[in-house]
């Protein structure tokens, strides 16, 4: 038994520990239930869902790159109703065990974000919070196209804010973070998830074509980590609302860097693919690190980076 209290408050949600999962890398949670008891996590964030189902992009949707991977799934999702029909029972049960379920909201336009969030608000009483994905690099409308300017991101937030009283988070694109973060805070965002995949490109030099069905895709993995830590730190300096750090977390020390940079929660992403129970290993390592720092409470370490 650890002697460190790991509970944190993230955007008004009480988490039993700071470990969350990155949207799109953890399905709807039940995919992992055979590998470990998902209710050991502080939170999970579900795959982005829109009001209606989306088919996503053509194949190939994935390629490995040095130190990570690149995807162009393009937010394939069963729509909010499909998601609730398929996974609602599991998620409600998970919520009842004290793991916060954060539902990610996708859209091609402000109206679509609104429509999706309205459905979520109505159909998901068990959801602890909603996360607006204005940063997917793999769709042509909405996603990063909407959230890469302060105006665009603010517009989506402004339209969505009245729909729910529950905490509203925003998943941010890896561009112009401080400005966009301030714009989102001003519109009432409760927390920010930093960062979504960075757009990249991999060319098959033999065929001269993209290794994905689109020219570019979104990068994940350790290659992102030092960039993501810097971005989390910048956002934490810029705003007062809490931040969840995402990007290349493979070990407890990677998670610890986000915590020190100011994040109140940390999401595990692609680490869960080769090692489905990575999130609980990382939780244990984070706890051991906190203990080694001689603190009683992980909260003492949030933002404890010394310049």
């Amino acid at each position, binding site marked *: 038994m650890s002697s460190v209290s790991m509970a944190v408050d993230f955007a008004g949600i009480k988490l039993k520990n700071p470990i969350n999962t990155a949207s*799109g*890398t*953890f*399905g709807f949670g*039940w*995919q*992992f*239930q*055979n*590998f470990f008891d998902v209710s050991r996590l502080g939170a999970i964030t579900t*795959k982005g869902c829109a009001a209606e*189902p989306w*088919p*996503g992009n*053509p*194949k*190939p*949707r*994935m*390629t*490995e790159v*040095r*130190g*990570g*991977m690149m*995807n162009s*799934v393009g937010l*394939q999702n069963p729509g909010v109703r499909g998601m609730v029909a*398929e*996974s609602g*029972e*599991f998620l409600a049960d998970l919520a009842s065990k004290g793991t916060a379920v954060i539902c990610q909201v996708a859209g091609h336009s402000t109206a679509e974000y609104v429509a999706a969030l309205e459905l979520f608000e109505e159909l998901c009483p068990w959801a602890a919070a909603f996360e607006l994905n204005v940063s997917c690099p793999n769709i042509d409308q909405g996603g990063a196209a909407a959230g890469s300017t302060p105006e665009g991101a603010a517009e989506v937030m402004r339209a969505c804010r009245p729909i729910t009283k529950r905490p509203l988070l925003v998943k941010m694109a890896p561009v112009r973070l401080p400005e966009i973060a301030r714009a989102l805070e001003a519109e009432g965002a409760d927390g920010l998830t930093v960062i979504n995949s960075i757009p990249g490109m991999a060319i098959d030099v033999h065929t001269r074509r993209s290794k994905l069905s689109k020219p570019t895709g979104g990068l994940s*993995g*350790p290659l992102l980590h030092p960039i993501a830590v810097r971005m989390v730190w910048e956002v934490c300096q810029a705003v007062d609302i809490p931040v969840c750090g995402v990007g290349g977390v493979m070990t407890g020390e990677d998670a610890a860097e986000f915590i020190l940079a100011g994040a109140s929660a940390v999401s595990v992403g*692609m680490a*869960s*693919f*080769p*090692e*489905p*129970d990575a999130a609980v290993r990382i939780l244990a390592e984070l706890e051991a690190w906190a203990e080694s720092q001689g603190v009683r409470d992980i909260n003492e370490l949030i933002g404890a980076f010394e310049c």
Partner: protein
Amino acid sequence: MPTPSPARVHDVTIVSNEPIARDVFALRILAPALAAALVPGQFVNIAVPGNAMSLLRIPLSFAEVDAEAGTIDIWYAVVGEGTERLSRMEPGATTTVLGPGGHGWTIPEGCRRALLIAGGIGVPPILCLARELARRNIPYTVCIGAASADRLVGEAEFEAAGSPVISIATDDGSAGYHGFCTAAAEQVLETEGDDFDYVATCGPEPMMAKVAAAAERAGVACEASLERMMSCGFGACATCAVETKSGMKGACMCGPVFDAKEVVW
């Protein structure tokens, strides 16, 4: 909740790892619990240590499982950095395998005769199916295609499993018929289609599309084993989607074996 993948992470030991054709290796791993669980047409997802820059597992079918000995036989082509690294693993080395992955072949009830068409490194899951057919005493005929004679695998094993290979084709004519193995399959289905209740195919997608079309013309049930770039292998990432007539389906959970009529080729 929907049924999650039955996959677990298994510790495995390499028993042997030897070349059997040009750029093709046969790998035998010891993994008793996994071997006991696998059915023909499923796949496993192997971690290949040695390159910290490469993080994902490699999905591979298998050619045979010996549940008693606890071994799994995999045949793989060396096509890139990961399979090259795998080819350097020595007997005795240990790693982990995630599986079973997906679901396998569905041999129709009362199947009288099956036609199997394998192209290139599509042979292993077809060979595994052939052995299952042989166990069930269902006769079958096989067409194998390869780029060239030195890359051809499976001929002896299909014969040993109980059926002569009716047709071999190579792209360069260095063995068997000069051309694609689909030609033979199309001819069989056209002329003797009524004798068959099941067509199974694995290989390059254009080949499988042709086989699927021929089977449909002949009115014979057809299954195809598809490959996709897979990140997880247990339904969590959606990178493995296959377009079907009823929407996108993950190859790792709803496949890799699909009803060929359902696939949008």
